[in-house]
């Protein structure tokens, strides 16, 4: 493991911001730290950087325990949530600062800064001050400034938070490409799961100062290990009682279920049904246009479910439809597991 956190605890007064945090990160990976607001993401990042000291536990970078190494000596690049560019310095001076601190020669600094400015595509803007740049451009400068001294580890705190949706999309893929090109191990914080899923090789999910799960985006999506993750990932709705639904009779009392739009399929009444015994009857209650698809609310046995339909399928409010629920995440206090629709599986086996 390249970066390793072992049993990290951190409190601010009586508030526990990190609670027995453990994880390891391999070299060269791009890691997304994902969690709701206040779950301790920034705190973890700041402790790795050395801007905050853990109350107990050890932090290792490249096999060296860094707890007692000051922030400036850890070889870490940090992109702040609001960029924290030096506002009285030009773009050039911002990027050059870390190199000047290292007492690099004038030519070396000039070469490196020009190289980075080319990399971030801001040629010709070297002399501008941060407040003469757009949000996206500032973000790029912050990125270049963090990279200039060739850090071994790059930490980014909500790098896209202050940027509008469209530019954010571009910057995401840009950042991902850059990080791969440079090959620097990186951790970025976000509370936007789409962002984490799209950008990260691996996701670490935090909640109430604890690490809930760590894994690839697909793993986390398909196999949530804790009730929190099951509810947090995807567009999840919680069903208090799902034993009523066809094919889920075996769910024990006290267990709840998480359902996502993609677990549900709706069909017209007159369509031929493949899994007749699994299909429920539902009534459409609301239809919302979401740009490239419809979001549909359908009531089945008194339970309101949310699903999606392609634009070609035009339904009407009040229409009776067939609803097929493929699977649910079942969870209780401690565990979460995936449960396929039994009625559906049974029919299948008969046909085969």
């Amino acid at each position, binding site marked *: 493991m390249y970066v390793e956190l072992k049993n990290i605890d951190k409190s601010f007064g009586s508030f526990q911001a990190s609670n027995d945090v453990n994880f390891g990160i391999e070299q060269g990976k791009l890691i997304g730290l994902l969690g709701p607001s206040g779950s301790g993401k920034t705190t973890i990042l700041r402790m790795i*950087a*050395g*801007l905050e000291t853990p109350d107990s536990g050890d932090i290792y970078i490249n096999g060296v325990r860094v707890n007692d190494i000051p*922030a*400036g*000596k850890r070889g*870490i*690049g*940090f992109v*702040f949530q*609001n960029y*924290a*560019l*030096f*506002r*009285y*310095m030009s773009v050039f001076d911002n990027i050059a*600062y*870390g190199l000047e*601190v*290292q007492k690099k020669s004038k030519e070396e600094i000039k070469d490196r800064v020009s190289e980075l400015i080319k990399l971030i595509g801001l040629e010709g803007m070297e002399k501008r*001050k941060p407040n003469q740049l757009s949000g996206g451009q500032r973000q790029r400068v912050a990125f270049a*400034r963090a990279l200039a*001294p060739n850090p071994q580890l790059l930490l980014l705190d909500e790098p896209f938070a202050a940027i509008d949706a469209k530019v954010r999309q571009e910057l995401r893929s840009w950042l991902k490409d850059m990080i791969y090109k440079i090959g620097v191990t990186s951790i970025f914080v976000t509370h936007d799961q789409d962002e984490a899923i799209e950008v990260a090789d691996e996701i670490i999910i935090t909640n109430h100062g604890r690490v809930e799960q760590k894994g690839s985006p697909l793993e986390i999506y398909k196999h949530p290990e804790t009730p929190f993750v099951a509810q947090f990932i995807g567009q999840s709705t919680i069903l208090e009682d799902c034993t009523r639904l066809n094919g889920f009779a075996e769910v024990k009392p006290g267990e709840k279920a998480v359902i996502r739009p993609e677990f549900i399929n709706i069909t017209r009444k007159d369509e031929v049904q493949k899994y007749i015994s699994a299909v429920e009857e539902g009534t459409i209650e609301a239809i919302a246009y979401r740009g490239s698809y419809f979001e549909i609310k359908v009531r089945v046995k008194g339970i309101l479910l949310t699903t999606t339909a392609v634009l070609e399928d035009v339904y009407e409010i009040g229409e009776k439809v067939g609803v097929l629920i493929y699977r649910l995440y079942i969870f209780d206090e401690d565990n979460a597991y995936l449960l396929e629709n039994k009625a559906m599986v049974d029919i299948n086996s008969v046909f085969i």
Partner: protein
Amino acid sequence: MSQTNKAIQQKSTNSNAKGVKVLLISLGVIFIFIMLVIPMIAVITYAFQDGLKAYQEAIFDPYTIKALQLTLLATVTAVAINTVFGLFAAWTITKFKFRGKQLLTTLIDIPFAISPVIAGLVLVLTFGKIGWAYDFLNAYDIKIVFAVPGIILATVFVTFPFISRELIPVLSAQGTDEEEAAALMGAGGFNIFRKVTLPHIKWALLYGIVLCTARAMGEFGAVSVISGHLRGKTNTLPLHVEILYNDFQLTSAFAVASILVILAVIILILRNLIEYKAKKAGEK
């Protein structure tokens, strides 16, 4: 028809507003004229009433020159001390979290709150013959009360909030992010201060220094108590003016006073220059 009515109405409200504006401006101008300009002109005319020669004599009188030197010495020292102190205090208060921070902030303001005369008395009570530090000071042959160090101390005391008060709002608005970013790149404390913090507070600092200088030069109350009015030794310009005045040497008194007026005008010009420059820097 109604439209013209409206236009007329608008015009009348406009001219009303204009009337108020003119009234307020003239009130302000008259007030400033009576309170500031006339007295200043009076000082200058009085100073020259016995002719240029008398003015020159008063100005180049050895005691006046001594007093001017002492005033400049006390001012420069006090401003230097307070600049350093003000920077430290403002830095500590804005960049660190600690207990008693509120108390420290309040303590800094004390000289604003208490009368300078009392400040002088406090110093006499502490360092004078009846003061608790007297034996110690005496043992090492250090004289504070009725001596130059006392004058400087009093000036420092009275002017010490000026610089930190100017800096605290600017520093706390800046936050600590930029400093953290610099520290992460391995920069040392002094480098961070010089390269990151100082550019930010430069104008506020200069402004504070100017205000502090103006106040230090004019200080009378605290200095008056602690100086003992020893001509040529512990007399500052304001004290010298008072002595001359009490001696009915009006021409001399006003001539010396005119030095202070000229210094004040120079400082005011500096102040405006700084404000103008800071504004321009802010717009950039």
